[in-house]
């Protein structure tokens, strides 16, 4: 018999969790007491806020492909996890979050720091449970890890009452391998693959859209093999970036509201649309009534609820795309689509002339976000990880960052959580200190979780923070300019001296406001051994283009 709190920690160790991110408090104190004894087997990272802890766990999960673990106390500790849970839910990130809860006899009495976190988190967790007895802890954690990482991954919350942590129970860790009510995988139906293959074989202008499902399903090699054989043009979603090299001949660019011109425009000109591990988010499709209506749709997808949710699939293939892609590759013929590919190249030229050139090599005085990314590309390592926040800098960094390998992109896609980047970058860095982690962030977003500079200080995580400062909530300002008659309602920011702030946290910092010296500043940042904070003051009122305005069709993508 051992203490429930020890069961918690030993269960986490049994699940091979190497890092946990958390913040202590009354109702989780027994677990923290237990952690003290296991610090040689599991590393706890003390963040400065529970939201920081869960975003760090997300960053960790996204680059490692493993389950991220966050720990918080009851009440406010638990409620501070909610944004991260919602973010992980919509971006399919595997997490196990453990929260302390008041003792079982106090449940429902409005005890100090009691909150119904199981109720609150229900819509934003894949599964959650409250545990009130020590012997139920290990089975709950085993089940939680299985659910979090299997099938379409997602966040799990396990709420453990204080008495369960202090009471003793038997500990015999049995990993959970199956749950009778839960089917995370499906046997792929050969006839579904065949039907998809027939459509692809007959297609004149087939077009692949791939998303994060390829990354989660570790199907990067299978996607490449499929594209190598078929020569079909392929575009990625925000979270699919990096799944294949952008130098692959089939790669034509990025989809969505601020994606590339050709991939959006030509969605309405293909005859067969092959969606792989993506969910037709509204930021990708624009107006659904005018989305790819001319095309037959093939949809390779693991989550049955995603099939026919937004776009009707003529040939759905339910199952893990790692398997279905290899089956499909076998069933299709060697082909090439040079003429069709050249249409993408033609439109790409248009985008290069009217947008990309000005973004990357501007002639105006003010610095652009794009040129900062250009210098990052110049000096970064091939396997550097880009972590971004939400807004203009996110779209620009995504558009121009040179993705060379998979799992190099960490951003808040579905939920659009400002404040995500700094803690997520810390989490990504904790997974591997030897990898470059570049945190590109705006002046709005960084201030939502800026306290995590303290965690970077304490852990010495060598995160390279690149603050693109336009003293505006830039994306909102852009919309105000375009759709609200330039009425800049509460989007301009009076910012603190970020350099002093970074230095207050003992983080080496520098600031660039003019083009001269930008290149050197970026180079210096990468040369520095340890965390670094680079502030670049950019043009105040730059806009991100191309753009598909809300309610518009993908064909109405604008270049200015």
């Amino acid at each position, binding site marked *: 018999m051992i203490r429930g709190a020890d069961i918690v920690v030993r269960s986490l160790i049994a699940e091979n969790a190497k890092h946990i991110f958390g913040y202590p408090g009354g109702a989780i104190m027994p677990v923290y007491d237990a952690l003290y004894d296991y610090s040689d087997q599991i590393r706890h990272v003390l963040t400065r806020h529970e939201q920081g802890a869960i975003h760090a766990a997300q960053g960790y999960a996204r680059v490692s492909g493993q389950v991220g673990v966050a720990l918080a106390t009851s009440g406010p500790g638990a409620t501070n996890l909610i944004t991260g849970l919602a973010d992980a839910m919509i971006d399919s990130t595997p997490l196990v979050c453990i929260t302390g809860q008041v003792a079982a006899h106090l449940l429902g009495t409005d005890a100090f720091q009691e909150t119904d976190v199981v109720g609150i988190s229900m819509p934003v967790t894949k599964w959650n449970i*409250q545990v009130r007895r020590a012997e139920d802890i290990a089975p709950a954690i085993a089940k939680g890890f299985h*659910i979090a990482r299997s099938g379409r991954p997602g966040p799990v919350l396990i709420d453990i009452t204080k008495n369960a942590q202090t009471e003793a129970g038997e500990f015999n860790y049995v990993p959970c391998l199956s749950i009778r009510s839960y089917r995370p995988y499906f046997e792929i139906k050969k006839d579904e693959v065949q039907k998809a293959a027939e459509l692809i074989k007959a297609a004149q202008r087939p077009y692949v859209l791939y998303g994060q499902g390829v990354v989660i399903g570790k199907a990067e090699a299978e996607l490449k093999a499929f594209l190598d054989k078929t020569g079909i043009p392929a575009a990625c979603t925000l979270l699919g970036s990096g799944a294949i090299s952008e130098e692959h001949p089939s790669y034509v660019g990025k989809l969505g509201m601020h994606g590339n011109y050709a991939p959006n425009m030509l969605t309405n000109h293909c005859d067969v649309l092959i969606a792989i591990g993506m969910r037709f988010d509204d930021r990708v499709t624009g107006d659904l009534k005018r989305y790819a209506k001319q095309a037959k749709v093939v949809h390779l997808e693991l989550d049955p*609820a995603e099939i026919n949710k937004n776009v009707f699939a003529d040939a759905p293939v339910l199952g893990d795309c790692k398997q279905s892609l290899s089956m499909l590759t076998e069933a299709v013929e060697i082909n090439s689509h040079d003429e069709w590919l050249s249409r993408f190249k033609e439109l790409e030229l248009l985008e290069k002339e009217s947008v990309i050139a000005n973004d990357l090599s501007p002639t105006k005085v003010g610095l652009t976000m794009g040129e900062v990314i250009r210098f990052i590309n110049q000096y970064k390592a091939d396997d550097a990880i880009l972590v971004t926040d939400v807004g203009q800098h996110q779209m620009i960094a995504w558009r121009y960052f040179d993705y060379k390998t998979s799992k190099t992109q960490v951003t808040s896609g579905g939920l659009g959580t400002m404040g995500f980047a700094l803690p997520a970058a810390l989490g990504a860095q904790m997974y591997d200190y030897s990898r470059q982690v570049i945190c590109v962030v705006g002046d709005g977003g960084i201030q939502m979780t800026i306290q995590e500079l303290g965690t970077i200080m304490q852990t010495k995580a060598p995160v390279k923070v690149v603050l693109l400062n336009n003293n505006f909530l830039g994306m909102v300002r852009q919309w105000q300019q375009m759709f609200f008659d330039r009425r800049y309602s509460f989007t301009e920011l009076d910012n603190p001296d970020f350099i002093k702030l970074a230095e207050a946290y003992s983080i080496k910092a520098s600031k660039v406001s003019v083009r001269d010296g930008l290149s050197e500043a970026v180079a210096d940042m990468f040369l520095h051994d340890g965390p670094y904070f680079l502030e670049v003051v950019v043009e105040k009122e730059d806009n991100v283009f191309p753009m598909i305005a809300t309610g518009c069709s993908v064909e109405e993508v604008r270049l200015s």
Partner: protein
Amino acid sequence: MNRYTILIYTENFIGILNRITIIFTRRGINIDALTASESRLDGIHKITIECAVTEEQIIQLVKQIEKITDVIKAYYFMDTEVVYQEIALYKLPIDSLDASLEKVIRQYNAHIIAAEKEFVVIEFTGHKEDTQALLETLKPYNLLEFSRSGRVAIAKPRFSVSEYLNNQTL
């Protein structure tokens, strides 16, 4: 919009009903009736939900319900595909019980299931139209209280949850 009956087989865990109902809440869909009870199988609960939605909506709803970890299986049916009943109870003052009321009770094949000093309680089972018709008929008799259950249903098409569970492959 069509009227559908959803049959859901779930593990008997705390909070499962909440997980199911928030799927409706989030989409702004009203649940017209809901019943929950143990099923034929040990430890497995059966939840019956009645709602009026489009075909597209019902397909999506049932997929979302089935996605819940602790839901074993969910099915949906049109009214023609299920045999269903609702039970209604009607409370009337004892002095309303005259020959004409007794005739009504006989006509409807309803039953008096409780008679107290002050009141009687009549029970009647049928579809909503039937229990509603009796409600209208009884109103002039100084109806005191009325209570109607949600629908309980048995599907006509053959399916077996126990077979489904036995055929589970990972």
